[in-house]
């Protein structure tokens, strides 16, 4: 047994190799992406692996594989599970023969997400078991056990780590790698796999019949465990278990919840031995509601009593405050310390040389009064450039734009969407916009990669997850086949061409598509492309501020004049927009 310092997602990936897993797929999304990235980079792969085009596609792929008796892993972030909810809800009816683990990584505090939804609700909704790790070691062990458990009960298992599991690090004890030798084989069984009404009614009853034994089996597995030590009890789940462990006195009872559904009899027995119970968990009062159902007259503290927050993430200090406010003892008092209010913020920003900045600049120039629905990706940071008016979920730029255009709103509607997001769920919206004759301009920001989540390839990149060359999808052909008459591809580094393409789009009726194509500046740098950086001629600079407002992190005001720092990637955009021609190519470093 080996002990290593690993990222949570690395430990999860390693557990998959120990299991071992046969089929891996997913769609990138923070904080889940590294699991597939690590597995696809393995020097030896005795499994099939793909980055799918979206989560629904991924889960259906994984389900097909698991129906053939092999072990499958499907990863996504919490909001990806919304996209995959359709197959999820019925996959519990059909069940699986090979182990199927669906990893849906939650993001309390929305570090890198559009909401703070709680995936545990989906497990309850779909009536599948859910594992909720409290530490990296537990995450590792749970994934290994989850495949076996899935096979034992014949159901998919939802694995729900959170950001502070996925992106935390720690010493982890690992098991040995194994090779499965399994080969998929589909056994025809229409009563199981064809969910016509006559079959599905029977399957639903079967699924409900499994629930009681699942609860008991989860207690036996040991992921829900309790120690009675006093009259007060704390019940915690997920990462909150780690935070509570740090400060709970030995005289307070402690129940750790790591798996759902919780066995009510077990929970009731524990709760009934106490005078007061405090439930500490992130996001929804999921455990708390279970506790309330069995507590009878025993007071239960938590979110519903106003002691714990419904939103955001917990921390050791937050857990300390919750325990204190509920009148529970702690063995450590955290000091009160506050963020300096006058520290200038340093929000994330588009890279120097990012093609998105150039595209937004051109859009704003041509459509001064425009309305700008946008989407999910690095380019959401175009908010800082005034180029993003709405973002709701993957693929919703084109659809929201159509809705606004059909609402009677008179201004031009120009939406932006990345290549990967367009292929994820943007195409249906484009087809619908053409079909319903919306008057919108769609700018596809095509940097040939899924950049924000760590540069995963997608069908426009031209390579598979394992680096095998494949024909890249043609965004132009897709748009034309949806019925778009004006489809123009330009390099946004050439501002004049970009502006002209947008002007042309503005003058035409219906749905127009401008594909702004330039490789992501980070992938270009990694591929060895370097451009000569630019310099400001301080004699010519009038300090007008045009380049500074452009928002490039390589441009600063050095006293009275603008200066270009060593972060310059040589995209030339600032030189193109400088009204006094003060910016020119400098010395190659």
């Amino acid at each position, binding site marked *: 047994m080996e002990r290593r310092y690993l990222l949570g997602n690395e430990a999860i990936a390693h557990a998959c190799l120990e299991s071992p897993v046969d089929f891996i797929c997913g769609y990138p999304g923070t904080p889940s992406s590294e699991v597939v990235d690590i597995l696809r980079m393995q020097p030896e792969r005795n499994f099939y692996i793909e980055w799918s085009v979206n989560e629904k596609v991924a889960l259906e792929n994984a389900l097909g594989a698991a129906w053939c008796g092999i072990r499958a892993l499907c990863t996504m972030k919490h909001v990806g599970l919304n996209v995959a909810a359709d197959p999820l809800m019925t996959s519990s009816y059909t069940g699986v023969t090979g182990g199927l683990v669906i990893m849906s990584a939650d993001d309390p505090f929305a570090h890198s997400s559009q909401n703070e939804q709680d995936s545990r609700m989906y497990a309850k909704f779909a009536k599948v078991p859910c594992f909720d790790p409290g530490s990296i070691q537990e995450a590792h062990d749970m994934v290994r056990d989850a495949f076996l458990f899935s096979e034992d009960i014949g159901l998919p298992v939802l694995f729900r780590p959170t950001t502070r599991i996925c992106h935390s*690090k720690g010493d982890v004890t690992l098991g040995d790698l194994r090779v499965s030798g399994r080969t998929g084989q589909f056994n025809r069984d229409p009563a199981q796999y064809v969910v016509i009404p006559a079959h599905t009614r029977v399957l639903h009853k079967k699924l409900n019949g499994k629930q009681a034994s699942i609860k008991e089996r989860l207690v036996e597995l040991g992921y829900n465990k309790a120690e009675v030590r006093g009259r007060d009890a704390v019940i915690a789940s997920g990462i909150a278990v780690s*935070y509570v462990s740090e400060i709970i006195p030995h005289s307070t009872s402690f129940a750790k919840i790591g798996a759902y559904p919780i066995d009510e009899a077990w929970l009731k027995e524990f709760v009934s031995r106490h005078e007061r119970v405090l439930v500490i968990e992130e996001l929804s009062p999921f455990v708390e509601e279970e506790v309330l159902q069995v507590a009878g007259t025993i007071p239960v503290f938590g979110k519903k009593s106003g002691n714990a927050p419904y939103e955001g993430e917990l921390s*050791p200090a937050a857990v300390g405050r919750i325990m204190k406010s509920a009148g529970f003892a702690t063995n450590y008092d955290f*000091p009160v310390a506050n963020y300096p209010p006058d520290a200038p913020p*340093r929000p*994330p920003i588009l890279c120097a040389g990012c093609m998105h900045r150039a595209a937004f600049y051109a859009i704003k120039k041509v459509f001064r009064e425009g309305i700008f629905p946008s989407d999910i990706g690095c380019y959401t940071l175009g908010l*800082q450039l005034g180029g993003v008016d709405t973002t709701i979920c993957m693929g919703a730029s084109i659809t929201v734009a159509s809705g606004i255009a059909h609402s009677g709103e008179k201004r031009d509607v120009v939406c932006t969407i990345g290549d990967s997001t367009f292929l994820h769920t943007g195409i249906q919206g484009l087809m619908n916009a053409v079909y319903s004759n919306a008057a919108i301009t769609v700018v596809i920001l095509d940097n040939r990669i899924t950049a924000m989540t760590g540069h995963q390839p997608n069908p426009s990149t031209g390579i598979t997850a394992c680096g095998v060359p494949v024909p890249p999808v043609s965004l132009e052909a897709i748009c034309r086949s949806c019925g778009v008459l004006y489809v123009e591809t330009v390099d946004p580094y050439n501002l004049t061409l970009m502006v002209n393409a947008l002007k042309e789009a503005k003058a035409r009726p219906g749905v127009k598509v401008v594909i702004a194509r330039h490789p992501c500046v980070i992938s270009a740098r990694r591929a060895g492309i370097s451009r000569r950086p630019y310099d400001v001629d301080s004699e010519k600079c009038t300090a007008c501020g045009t380049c500074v407002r452009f928002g490039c992190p390589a441009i600063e005001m050095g006293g009275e004049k603008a200066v270009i720092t060593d972060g310059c990637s040589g995209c030339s955009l600032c030189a193109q927009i400088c009204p006094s021609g003060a910016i020119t190519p400098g010395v190659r470093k």
Partner: protein
Amino acid sequence: MKESYDILVVGIGGQGTILASNILGEACMIENRPVKGAETHGMAQRGGSVESHIRIDGRFGPLIAPGTADIIIAFDMLEAFRYSYYLRPGGKIITNRRLVVPTSVFMQGLPVPTDREILGRLSGYELCVIDAEGLAKEAGSLLTQNIVMMGAASQFIPLKTESLVQSVSRLVPPKTLEANLKAFELGRVAGSSC
């Protein structure tokens, strides 16, 4: 009573805070000590403010509570100021003397923070200011600034110098090993005069 020695490494996305935290974690493995940590990934990394928590001998969660960090290692002086509230009374801040002004400050025309002003705001702390850029240049590569900072901090962190050096050797790309080892040593010397 806190059992772990808690280190906060802060900087700007892209400055190498994750490698720095990996070096500390790996050194703990070399010394067979438990360790926990947390870091920033995803969108927040794109040139934004980033933080890595490392808890040497940590057995519980990965997060350090504000007001309890034993040491802050800052790759940028403004970030040292931003996260200074994490420091425990009597704790130490090791900071790079460089201050990168956030682009949003220029874009929004906010007052531009100066080195002197930020140094003044940090004067209440036990402070060790390192010229990481100069020392990295001396080591042969500007990319070794994070290792210079680790070298300086190694004077105060309860890990053996040999473990940290071994950890650096394991984690940096082989081609850059010589420069990184030199950077660590130069940082260590600079840290000794704090």
